[in-house]
């Protein structure tokens, strides 16, 4: 059972307090978008073995959504940050790059 620190309330929360929301940093495609773009938005996920960015909600705590960078193979947590982020914070990206030199980046 994972523990993730909620970046809003600072609590190191256990998985039972959290709900998972799947891959982070997806771009929403609405009416007028191509079938390919819409398919990739709705159905296509990276599902990597390694560094992954995810949405989590501190559902049984402060109720806030946040994002987490985590290794799906070792379960190492690189960091968490607010959901209101267009991309992972630069220092978090630098930290991941230092630990995983072959990381391809979050996109």
């Amino acid at each position: 059972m994972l523990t993730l620190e909620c970046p809003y309330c600072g609590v190191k929360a256990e998985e039972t307090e959290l709900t998972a929301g799947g891959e982070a940093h997806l771009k929403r495609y609405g009416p007028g978008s191509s079938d390919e773009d819409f398919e990739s938005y709705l159905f296509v996920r990276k599902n990597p073995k390694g560094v992954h960015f995810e949405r989590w909600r501190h559902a049984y705590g402060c109720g806030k959504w946040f994002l987490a960078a985590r290794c799906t193979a070792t379960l190492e947590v690189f960091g968490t940050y607010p959901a209101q982020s267009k991309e992972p914070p630069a220092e978090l990206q630098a930290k991941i790059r230092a630990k995983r030199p072959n990381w391809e980046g979050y996109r």
Partner: protein
Amino acid sequence: MSTRLSKGGRLIDRTKPLSFTFNGRRMKGYHGDTLASALLGAGQTMVGRSFKYHRPRGVMASGAEEPNALVGLGQGGRFEPNQRTTTTELFEGAETISQNHWPSLEFDIGAINNKVARFLPAGFYYKTFMFPRFAWKHVFEPIVRQSAGLGKVPQHRDEDRYEYAYAFADVVIVGGGIAGIASALAAGRAGKRVWLIEQSAHWGGRAVVDGVQIDGQDAGDWVKNAIETLGKMANVTLRGRTMAAGLYDHGYLLAYERIADHTPGDGRPRHRLWRIRAGHVVTATGAIERPLSFAGNDIPGVMLASAVRDYVVNWGVSPGDRTVIVTNSDDAYRTALALLDAGLVVPAVIDARPEAKGELPEAVRARGVRVLAGHGIAKVKGGKEVTGVSVCIQAGEGAEIESIACDAVAMSGGWSPVVHLWSHCGGKLLWDEAQAMFRPDPKRPATGDDGAAMVTAVGAANGILTPHEILADAHRAAGGTGTAPGAVAAVEAPMQPVWIMPQGAGPALRMKMWLDPQNDVKVSDVQLAAREGYESVEHTKRYTTLGMATDQGKISNINGLAVLSDALSQAIPATGTTTFRPPYTPISMGAIAGEARGEIFQPLRRTPMHGWHETHGAHWEPVGQWRRAYCYLRSGEGVHDAVNREIRNTRNAVGLLDASTLGKIIVKGPDAGRFLDMLYTNLMSTLPVGKCRYGLMCTENGFLSDDGVVVRLTEDTWLCHTTTGGAERIHGWMEDWLQCEWWDWKVYTANVTEEYAQVAVAGPNARKLLEKLGGMDVSKEAFPAMEWREGTLGGFRARIYRISFSGELSYEVAVPASEGLAFWEALLKAGEALGVMPYGTEAMHIMRAEKGFIMIGDETDGTVIPQDLNLQWAISKKKDDYLGKRAQERKHMVDPDRWKLVGLETLDGSVIPDGAYAAAEGVNANGQRNMQGRVTSTYFSPTLGKGIAMGLVKRGPDRMGEVLDFPVDNGKVVKARIVDPVFFDKDGEKQNV
């Protein structure tokens, strides 16, 4: 035969005798005994039969690794099968029964399997029960079911209670032997929050039995002093009888405390499941001795050498008068010395190594015992008990050199570190050639959330078997400063791996060499699996069932995979181990459930009127975590009659429905209208203050997810009603979009579901009833449909919505939750003369179906879009975007062949079964009949006096009047005509009065 010695036994108190029964026979033991030591002490060498061949079985081990000595323990609500006698403490009056035999332990019909064992090899079931197919159901399955299963299933409700507990620690040290104690001392002195847990009731592990000296004291004294020291440290928690069952992600450790197994019925919880968050876990879990594979190694009286000395030293029990020892290392000579010290006879030590010249063998020789180096056991003689051994050359094929009479055999094949916890979360192992064991690879531990090691193995669990080095390792690993405790023990010569005894044994002997005595897997079975192409150890395990019994192969797995490696002509590490999975030893289902059973299995949500419903005949229906009244039963009335009465009364007079469970979410802010326009398929921003509008919500995949009436409270505030089960989900859905997608929009949401009690007042007399309460103008002119008013109704602060889900003149009245019951009772009192009567959810369902209103979860199932339900009128054409709009533009979603909502009327007036499918011509690619529609809601309508149904039918609305075939049970076909889904009051004359 085993017996109790006249003296000795460091754990038993001879002044406290205890009586217990085995298969109804009265026996005596002592306080401090385990069931196993008490049975052996009472001379009960044979304690059960094996699973497959029903061979006689006795106690083989002295701890958690025991494969054979399982019993049914207790009576009635405290009966439990498969209790491991070696880890069950004896208590006064314990009632035990042996397992896997019929009619009796001594005489067993199933033992015929032993005689035909040649015809029951590995994979027998897979190979045999294939053909003919009909035989499976009528012949094979009944036989397999009769003989399957270990022990008997309890028949009564569990009388005990169980609980969870939570703990946090910097370091959890698992194992209370000298390694665990040394680690706890080091970590405790460093000021860390330490937990030290031990699965048995005693501290000290092997060292106290093996006569080790620590810091100039007997190990027993050192352990006693150390535990006292630890007990005085405020930062150290000691827990005996607590087994670490599994280690999971990020240091989450499950531990199983057996609080009252040895004091049943004393009022304490029987088991406690500890859910511990550990900063770091130190596994000081020791090692388990391996058996040797020689013919007849499963006969009662053949035991692990370490267990033999445990029984002698700990419990003063002799396994037999004459015990032959067979080994491949120096360690087993300790057993010889312990037996000699107890005054028992050791006819010989049979050592597979070419020579035995270490300190311990010499000490045994000096006591006049024959040491037969380079020898092995060709076979054990005896059936239900050992009568002797046939000695051979280890290098040979098993020709008997001499026969030695004995009644017990102590075997030692080396030690396997207990690496389960180390491995549960991904810790890797390496093969230690010199000691012939898998041990933790310190370079590849399980890692935690910071990417650093979260587990450290110490002592024997780390592959270190000498006490001095064990203490140094445990001290260092726990961050100890200064010198580690020092130990003195005999120096041992190297062991030599022996996987088969003798090494050239032929098929006849290999068929009698047991690897897994609980599941009856022999050397020959694993070799057969290899010949048949099972190369992966995981496949071989499943094919032969090696290590799949309740002991999970604690003593058998390494021997099994060594035999497999040999058969595959590859090195042992190339074969690898099977996966170690929690729990380490079985834990009770009760402990997993904890307190969550019966009424508190899950939280129950009650409306303010719940208690009234309960005392007025409510027939409950679970809806999410709520209980809603399905109907209200009057004395002598059936459910069906009650529902019909409630409907007739609502249609003809006035009914009350407790609608408090409906979700109520406030959405407020400058951008609230814009936000709701995205959330709902229709326009909510244009809804005038004071009005209500029915709305639909879809997922991004276009499918209908929830519906409800939206109310504009003020210029910037809306109240969204959701379905009963949807409140939390929809609130979360709103927050998701607000926080993660449109976070610059100024909107707040609040789930106020439980702040209001809500009552639907429906029926021709609804207005009269509200007028009788008085205080608000509810006339047709002042209060039209789909509007709301706030005011004081009969003295209650009320907000009234004029909305109808029944098709009747209807007002839904919301009052503060605290006034809900009083308001409900006021309505009933005021309505007496008007024929008021409460109605339940079933009446609500039928009335809405009579009106053709859809229900989320009936007409929808996650694959239905609003357009399928002819709800185009609720989908805004003006909006560029809403959640689900893009998805609804996909080709398949606009296909005219989609199944769409229609009414269905049976030709004979009967009720079609729910979920029935309408058959079409022809068959599909799988040879199944083609279908063209299905029933989504179906009821008997008391209003119309016939069955009515709604369903989704291919191009349904274009096919009005067509008759469809609905095949139901037993080849019967119900014919139903496609009709308008609005069955009752099509023009809405009843509600618009």
